[in-house]
């Protein structure tokens, strides 16, 4: 397997692209030895981050979402970027069942945190948000040795 690999995709903030983005990341992630439940976790986290960019970042108006993913040293990194409205209080936004939209659950960040190894959010008001997540396969098969 290659030492490192990456993808970078841009798409308009259309609801239809949420399914596309999680399928894309899952297919890319399959280059590592993730189990099916782990791929489900990656799909879910990606779906949440992209949905947030569309719903909250661009408030369902037109915008461009950038999706980057890379594999380095056996670790998958997924980054979702929008140039939308930004998050005022990131710590508050991450809290369980916190939402600024009535009718939503407030679970997106909770899933991202629970399903990935790490979650990092950068945001500034009026400029946009980037969400970076990493994950490595739990059942790591050492490249050398017999374990």
């Amino acid at each position, binding site marked *: 397997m290659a030492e490192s690999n990456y993808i970078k995709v841009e798409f308009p903030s259309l*609801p*239809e692209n*949420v*399914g596309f983005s*999680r399928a894309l990341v899952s297919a890319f992630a399959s280059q590592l030895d993730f189990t*099916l*439940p782990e791929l*489900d976790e990656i*799909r*879910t986290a990606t*779906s*949440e981050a992209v*949905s947030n960019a*569309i*719903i909250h970042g661009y408030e369902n108006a037109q915008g461009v979402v950038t999706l980057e993913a890379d594999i380095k040293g056996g670790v998958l990194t997924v980054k979702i970027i929008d140039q939308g409205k930004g998050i005022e209080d990131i710590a508050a936004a991450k809290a369980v069942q916190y939402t600024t939209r009535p*009718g*939503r*659950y407030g*679970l*997106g960040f*909770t*899933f991202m945190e*629970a399903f990935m190894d790490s979650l990092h959010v950068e945001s500034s008001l009026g400029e946009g948000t980037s969400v970076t997540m990493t994950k490595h396969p739990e059942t790591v098969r050492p490249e050398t040795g017999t374990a």
Partner: protein
Amino acid sequence: MIINAEKIGTAIVARIQGELDMANADQLRASIDEKLDQYETIRDVYLICDAVPFIDSSGLAVLLGRYRKLEERGGKLFIANPSPQARRVMELSGLSKLVGICDNWNPADLQQRGVTNG
């Protein structure tokens, strides 16, 4: 998303097909609510989810909303045959404690539950 919803007695049985996210959450909400508005006698809703490999928070919000509507009527929401992913997110969200989850569902189960045509 393909949704086949039918009224059977005091229940709606909806067979859904496709991944449930923000692209089709409104469609599912509308197709259930339309029947709930149409028939005040409906108490329970059964969502048959064999063919729903994926649900995210947008989909869970629709399920929670329908659960609450049915609760007001003294009824309940049932999720039949959720995928492993759907089960996992329902558990994490706490939704699995509110809705009824039916594994190994088959249509004959409806009669056993006292849901009959008429």
